[in-house]
């Protein structure tokens, strides 16, 4: 992917990706802040704050209307590590996106009305996506069990509703002051625009936003786990589900790509080991998959599955453990390795279809250190040998490094007394 890099005096990084085949453009701003930067009792703040960013700024009474009036659309997402905003619009109107994003970086309106209204909206989002869904809070349990110290112990939506209910205006203002500064942001402009024009506009709209010193409090380091941890949850769900997770290195640390490859072999696609051994060939698992969270700090390799009716999560774990043990004693055939490589290769092509995807990838890898990492990681991944993957599995996928949530269907008795 072609791109040019610039840095403004205030520390704002600018990446420009020119694509003349489209009449659209995307302006994407990534702030290096997520639920990773939160503390207990104030969880969910990064995501809640993302909502407040749409509440207007000093010169923009209504952010959304201003985007829509020039034929654009906008949205944002927050995860553990970043908060990412984008505006997609006809390229001829790109300057409006600069105006809007720079104004809310410089002087966001934090009116009480917006703060209170979005508190209600986020609480409904919390319910809709996590509490009012079968298995919806499973990751709440998984994170809380697996992490003792690190802020990855709660999901980005927040640990519980009470935290959202209790945020004060001061919490919100503080959060804005400490994280929403040009030296903590990456600006990506992509689409039908020349790099020189993108830079001129960046200087014009973002150039006079002052840099601020940032407190770089790192989250507490997660101690090494020495003993298997388990938790049983009872809930109104149709069947049991099993979540078994292992601590793995952070996104840029040695061993991460190997862990990622473990999940490619174990759990990606219909031809994966878990699918074949546990789903197709037992009547215990209705589904089973494996993936890594891939966050900046040490995170998790997750295996999750739903049981067929009448089978319990504890028995399912025994079968899963057998497959993992076999895997740790096996060799990975050249054909399987080639498959994983073909998939990595194809994914690069598929991901490049949409302009917005390209803009977000560029911002994400810039945040990791450099857009070059995208290609470098791919090259490194392709060079990793089968023995190394198995060796990593032996080191990481041990019982003492595991946490297990048995998410169980409430038995009839319990259901009646509830």
């Amino acid at each position: 992917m072609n791109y040019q890099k610039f840095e403004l005096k205030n520390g704002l990084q600018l990446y420009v990706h020119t694509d003349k085949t489209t009449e659209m453009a995307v302006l994407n701003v990534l702030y290096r802040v997520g639920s990773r930067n939160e503390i207990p009792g104030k969880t969910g703040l990064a995501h809640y704050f993302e909502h407040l960013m749409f509440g207007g700024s000093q010169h923009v009474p209504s952010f959304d209307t201003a985007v829509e009036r020039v034929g654009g659309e906008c949205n944002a997402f927050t995860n553990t590590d970043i908060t990412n905003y984008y505006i997609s619009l006809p390229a001829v109107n790109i300057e409006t996106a600069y105006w809007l994003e720079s104004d809310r970086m410089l002087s966001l309106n934090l009116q009480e009305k917006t703060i209170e209204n979005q508190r209600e909206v986020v609480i409904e989002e919390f319910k809709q996506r996590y509490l009012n869904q079968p298995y919806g809070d499973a990751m709440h349990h998984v994170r809380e069990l697996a992490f003792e110290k690190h802020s990855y112990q709660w999901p980005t939506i927040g640990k519980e509703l009470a935290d959202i209910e209790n945020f004060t205006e001061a919490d919100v203002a503080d959060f804005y002051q400490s994280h929403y500064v040009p030296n903590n942001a990456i600006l990506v402009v992509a689409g039908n625009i020349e790099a020189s024009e993108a830079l001129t506009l960046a200087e014009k709209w973002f150039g006079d936003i002052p840099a601020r010193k940032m407190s770089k409090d790192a989250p507490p380091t997660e101690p090494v786990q020495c003993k298997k941890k388990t938790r049983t949850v009872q809930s109104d769900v149709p069947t049991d589900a099993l979540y078994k997770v292992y601590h793995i290195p952070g996104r840029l640390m040695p061993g991460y790509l190997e862990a990622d490859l473990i999940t490619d072999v174990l759990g990606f696609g219909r031809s994966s080991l878990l699918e074949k051994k546990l789903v197709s060939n037992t009547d215990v698992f209705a589904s089973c998959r494996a993936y890594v969270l891939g966050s900046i700090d040490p995170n998790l390799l997750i295996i999750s599955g739903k049981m067929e009716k009448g089978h319990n999560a504890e028995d399912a774990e025994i079968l899963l453990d057998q497959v993992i043990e076999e895997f740790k004693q096996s060799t990975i055939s050249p054909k399987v390795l080639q498959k994983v490589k073909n998939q990595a290769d194809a994914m690069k092509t598929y991901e490049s279809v949409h302009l917005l995807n390209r803009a977000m990838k560029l911002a994400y890898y810039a945040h990791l250190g450099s857009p070059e990492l995208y290609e470098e990681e791919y090259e490194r991944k392709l060079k990793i040998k089968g023995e190394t993957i198995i060796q990593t599995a032996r080191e990481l996928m041990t019982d003492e490094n595991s946490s297990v949530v048995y998410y169980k269907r409430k038995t009839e008795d319990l259901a009646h007394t509830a």
Partner: protein
Amino acid sequence: MVNRSIAPGFKIPEQIAFTQPTKRTLKNGVPLYFISTPHLDVVKIEVIMPNNHPDYSPMRGLIPFFTLNMLLEGTHELTSDELDDFFDYYATEVEIVSGFEQQGLSLLTTKKHFREVLPVFRSLFTEATFPEKELAKRKSQKKLTIAIQQEQTGARANQLIRKALFGEMHPFGYISDEAHVDAVNRDAIKGYYATNFCVAPEIFVTGHITDREMQEIENQFNDLPFGEETSTSPSFETFDGKRITDLRPQSLQSSIRLGKILIPKSHSDYNALMVFNTTLGGYFGSRLIKNIREEKGYTYGISGLLGSLRSTDYWMILADVKKGFAEAAIDEVYKEIKLLAEVVLEKEELETVRNYMIGHFLSQFSNPFDLMGRFKKIHLQGLDYTYYEDQLRYIKSFDPSDILRIGKKYFDEESIKEIIVGA
């Protein structure tokens, strides 16, 4: 210092290039539509057929679903495992198209592997074997999906609004249950595959391919045997009452749905209806978002949509709202409909809706895969590009009094059905 109080100027695109696919016809009469993607080494082939179910009944309602979903479970040449290994090895995605009106398969692969995977993809249309063991697994997986959907207030509400609008005897109103899963067997699937699957197919190709590769697609699909479409559009029967409620006291929210059957895309009021729906609930700046989310905080999201079926289109409002506020939210929807039908749009809102819709229009034609998607959408409804040209012209120039007229003509409160699932 830049003066931030002055918004930058903007332009609204005058013209949008509606690039059309080229058409060719295979020897067997099957039409093939092609859009080239010279900058992307991807090939996508979609083979789409009408969902053809002449002897439709709820007990047989899942036969098309299982037929489609069993296609990858084995052919005369390759077992289920071998098929999975094959497509995954070449990083190729074969997707089942199992809709209410269309069925078929789509292939997404890279230019590099295209020639290897094409013949195997082709074999799925005539060589599937439907083994018993895999069918049993699929059936129990489907039962679990049904059980989970039953628990989800949103999924349940979607089922009920479709049932209210179309009735259980219509494929779109049909709600599957475990007994319907049990009723599926291998013979019924094989029968459907033999006579109702390869019917009146059309092929849509998007990708970076040479003439020679196009020739290979033609060679592969030239001999695809297929039948004439026999089923007519099924008739629907709308629920007599006003509201269906599924009370769940433990639930933290209520999923509400409002809806009614409306005019097809070919109707002269359709473009005006689209603007009406967008203004009411079709974008983030809509009346419903502003009122029910941003003013009252009843919900994370509320939206209005116009859905398409071949015979008719329908309109729906969807939201999951705070426990105890379902009635209040529904009242507000009617209030907003009434306002749109009685008070003419102010200049500023008119400009916002117009420009948003034009920009959104442009964004939907911005890459080759989108272009094919746009083409399929109208083509499968028997329309051509004048549909988009007229629509763009309408959005640019409509008179706001037209929106009042639509509100009065189509949105009588009595005619709208309501669903509440939850607390």
